């Protein structure tokens, strides 16, 4: 599966124009390096010879406030792994290094993981601490790269053919695709919202009550290995917490195609009434996917109780359809 990894670099029109200008400078073999404004003090830039390969455009997204310093030595771009790029993708010499001396070439890699999951690795050394949105079909969430420009997450494959797309705030994009054979064995319930909404999915499996073993929620999320062993479902939380205006998601995944018993999983949504949302409409989006087939995605507005109810929870049992499990 790893050999199927591929990435492509796509830039929006404006960025592409700006970077084409840089490409001209590079073809003049001007040695360059850049240090972003957020780079740590004392980072020593690397000096390597430039290899003007392929003559393509550079599509490393740039922070407009970042200062660019051109050094004296040429830079060397990393060799691309054989067969790893899309045939029509613009192969590019990466003539710049990050603050830590790593080549800027951003990568997005994904591989199937147990429990119908996908392990995603994003590496964008020249995009440290930047917001990006990761999209898979109807699912989208916002997170931030680390100080070294890395990000890793394991998320459910929502269909057998998974297409992942990462978009940074400046419009530059990375994408990859892979096939996850066991994705069709899982049902998913997805709740998405923006910011600190305080929403959570609660699943009561096979007659469990609140607080019992079969009660799955963000407070007791379990993990994919639980589902891989056909013991029950699990919750995946996605998106950066504690940041306003980021897109977040909670997914409950259940191995319906693996279960040796029939029964019912009751699903409810809880929304905490907070000083920030009381008396207002809380926007969210729900999607249910059964055996790889998505039902219509629905935008939801929860009319939150007034502010005298702060601290209470709005419990909605009919918002998500319960999962009916048939014995396999």
């Amino acid at each position, binding site marked *: 599966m790893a050999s199927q990894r591929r990435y492509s670099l796509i830039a929006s029109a404006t960025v592409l124009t700006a970077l084409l200008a840089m490409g001209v400078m590079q073809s003049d073999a001007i040695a360059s390096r850049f240090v972003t404004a957020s780079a740590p003090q004392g980072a020593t830039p690397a000096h390597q010879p430039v290899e003007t390969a392929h003559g393509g455009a550079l599509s490393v997204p740039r922070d407009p406030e970042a200062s660019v310093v051109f050094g004296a030595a040429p830079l060397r771009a990393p060799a691309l792994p054989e067969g790893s790029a899309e045939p029509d993708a613009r192969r590019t010499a990466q003539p710049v290094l990050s603050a830590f001396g790593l080549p800027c070439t951003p990568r997005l890699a994904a591989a199937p993981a147990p429990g119908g999951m996908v392990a995603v690795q994003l590496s964008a050394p020249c995009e440290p601490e930047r917001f990006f949105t990761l999209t898979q079909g109807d699912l989208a969430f916002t997170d931030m790269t680390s100080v070294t420009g890395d990000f890793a997450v394991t998320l459910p494959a929502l269909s057998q053919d998974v297409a992942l797309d990462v978009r940074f705030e400046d419009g530059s994009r990375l994408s990859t695709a892979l096939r996850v054979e066991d994705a069709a064995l899982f049902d998913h319930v997805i709740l998405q919202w923006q910011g600190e909404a305080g929403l959570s999915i609660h699943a009561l499996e096979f007659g469990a009550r609140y607080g019992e073993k079969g009660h799955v929620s963000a407070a007791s999320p379990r993990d994919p290995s639980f589902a891989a062993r056909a013991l029950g479902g699990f919750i995946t939380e996605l998106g950066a917490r504690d940041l306003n205006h980021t897109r977040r998601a909670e997914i409950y995944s259940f191995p319906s195609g693996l279960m040796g018993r029939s029964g*019912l999983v*009751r699903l409810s949504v809880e929304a905490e009434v907070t000083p920030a949302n009381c008396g207002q409409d809380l926007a969210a989006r729900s999607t249910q996917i059964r055996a790889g087939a998505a039902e219509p995605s*629905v935008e939801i507005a929860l009319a939150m109780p007034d502010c005298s109810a702060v601290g209470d929870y709005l419990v909605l049992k009919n918002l998500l359809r319960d999962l009916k499990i048939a014995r396999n």
Partner: protein
Amino acid sequence: MAILRAAFSAALFLFVSLAAPAAAQDVTLSAKGGGLSVSGTLLSFDGEFYRVQTEFGPLVLDGSGVDCSGPGCPDLETFVARITVAGDEMLGAELMPLLLEAYAQERGLKIRRIVSDDRNFHYVLWEEGSGSPVAEIAFHLGTTVQGFGDLLRDQADIVMAAREMTREELAAAREAGLGGLKAAARGRVIALDGLALLVAPENPVQGLSLAQARAVRAGLVANWADLGGADAPIVLHALAADSGLEQAISNRLEPLGGIAVTRHQSLASLADAVARDPLALGFGTLTEQGNARPLDLIGACGRAFPKGAHAIKAEDYPLTLPLLLYTPPRRLPKFARGFLRYLNTAPAQALIRANGFVDLDAERAPLSGQGDRLAAAILNAGAEVPLGELQRMVTALAGYERLTTTFRFETGSSVLDAQSRTNVLLLAEALEAGRYDGQTLVFVGFSDGEGAAATNRQISENRARRVRDAVRRAARALPEGGVRMRTEAFGEAMPMACDESGIGRQINRRVEVWVGPKMDQDG
């Protein structure tokens, strides 16, 4: 002018019995070109038709024939269809919202669901790239009775019901000017379910007879030992007395006697409580069995009734539960009419199936799949039904397949029940769509075993003819000779259930539909 007058007189004819409340005169509708005009309060506008409350009662006027003046006139440019769906939670909690969402998606509309709580929410549907919505659909979930109340007060466009209207409710509807509500087009079955006796998975009892279920409800049996279980009290669970389902169970089985019973507001809560208690017995449904287990229903002579989608469609399961939608006898907004049509399409029926309900699509089973019934017929043979009669039946049906479409009658009458009335329309639609072109449909009448065999044969023949005629009348677009239709009657020859019980006899009184191979020449 002509349009106005026609609508005027038609509306008077329909609504003349309704008392006119004194209301603000907020619209005046004038016939284009002058002449007649009507003033009153605008009740609704569906984009095509005005409904106005006037001193004569509500009138419906074609918008293309009149000009509207006054503060109550709708903005014709930004018309939004507003539809209220009310009634039983059984349909309203999951199935109807899902069907509406799927319909909106099929029409390419964006969907927003605004939720106040579990029982009150509304949808706003709009076209992508357009600011103003196309339709707003409000859901108010409660009981069947509450839904019928909203229908009588004209506060709902679509009412969800877990049972049919009672005679008293129909009388009240006529009183309120809603005549003809029982016409199949007004009360229409959209999905089927079955009443079920639910127990915890570990309960050792496998089945109950209908007589035992009745005895439990009446309070005559209170210990599992009397039902083949452990020596322990039966802990009863039922829905609230005002729920449509509990009323249906009371009608079909027996009202609950003065005994201890835990009442639930929802089927989910009932099923969860039953699943946790090995001593519990709950009166719920097959679809909402949750983690509980439905008991087999045993006929009077010891055979279990078949359950599953096939048996429920054919009403061979004794406690089938048609789920219905009622609409008021007035023109609904165009969006609502489109949605109701969508419910009969294959994608909608597939969603109904995927949600655990039984859909209405006719299925087929060959004679060879009727082994149990043939065995029962042979056991039943004797002086009343001689061997020759059975041989005649097997010869007549050889090579034919039985449709799940079956027609049954209300207790002690020759009136078709709700599921069967819908079956008339569905079979007629299938005929018009050419599904049985070049084939032969045989309407086969059967009766119960009460009375003389010859009389029963005659009764079953009459019923088969009446059903065939009703289907033929409903299939107006079917060309003459496109499908051959004939009748057969075998009286009490092939009973579905034992005759000892009233329910058994009701199941046996039926008209089945069998489909012959193409270009069949017999009969």
